[in-house]
């Protein structure tokens, strides 16, 4: 395995490892934080890391389907944020707080 191919190039693996690191930071944040909005941001971070991997594969295979997948990820992320933030607003109205500990009962 040749990570440093020459002085002016970067291997696809560098991008994959960067994507893995960013995904891990997002996943760890999702596990560690209790604030629901920050947890959402960590999910966005994970989606971005996966997008980076998609685009790297699109370039490596010269196949634009990887870039098309990013658009679908983006649309799903937009839908998720719209619904998720609406849920946070609804929870905040009832509980005056938006940490994950406030939502430990499955009733209003």
């Amino acid at each position, binding site marked *: 395995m040749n990570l440093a191919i020459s002085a002016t190039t*970067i291997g*696809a693996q560098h991008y994959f490892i960067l994507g*893995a690191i960013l995904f*891990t930071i997002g996943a760890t944040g999702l596990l*560690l*934080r209790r604030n629901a*909005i*920050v947890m959402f941001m960590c999910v966005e971070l994970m989606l971005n890391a996966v997008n980076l991997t998609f685009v790297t594969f699109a370039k490596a295979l010269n196949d634009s389907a990887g870039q098309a997948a990013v658009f679908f990820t983006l649309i799903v992320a937009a839908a998720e944020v719209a*619904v998720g933030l609406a849920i946070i607003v609804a929870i905040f109205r009832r509980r005056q707080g938006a940490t994950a500990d406030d939502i430990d009962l499955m009733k209003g």
Partner: protein
Amino acid sequence: MNALLLAATKDVVAFHVNPVLFYALAAIAIAGATGVVISRNPVHSALFLVMTMIIIAVFFLTLSAPMVAIVQVIVYASAIVVLFLFVIMLLGIDRHEMLATDDRKYQRPAGAALGLLTLGGLIATVIGNWQLGPQTSSGRALSAIPTLDGVASTTAGETDQIRPLARTLFTQFAWQFQVTAVLLVIAVVGAVVLARRSTRPARTEVSA
């Protein structure tokens, strides 16, 4: 055959990116991502998120995906983060998280351990004995792609980068693209229904 694919996918694929640029941007992206996680104030988290997303857009540019990079800046770094900030300001929950009065002591070590496990698994996958599938999405056999080491030397114009993307998106994924329209409509309706200020709960409490 497998050895050939492995050689093609693991060693030959290299992009003409300045390593200094790559490592500098990667450091900024990782710092921004860490900032999202460790900031006590949600507003700071959102600003670190903008930083990370813009750096990722620059990475998309280095991967000759200008369209994706611009959409990343417009949709992610602008629209989504503005929505986050809007909700933070609307609800006034930009106060600091009470990490000191944490009654669940096991959460942080357990989360950190699971994070390290995830990182180890992902990096083992990346540098391990992986290979790409036998076919790409367009049905071509991987070995038939003439590019893998030619990609880097290809100097394609702007239109040559965007036109294949449009063709893929609007022919091969046309059905999925229309389904996402339905998804967005459902999301908008759901957001309106959830965020609507209902007067009914007050009345039921009175009647109960």
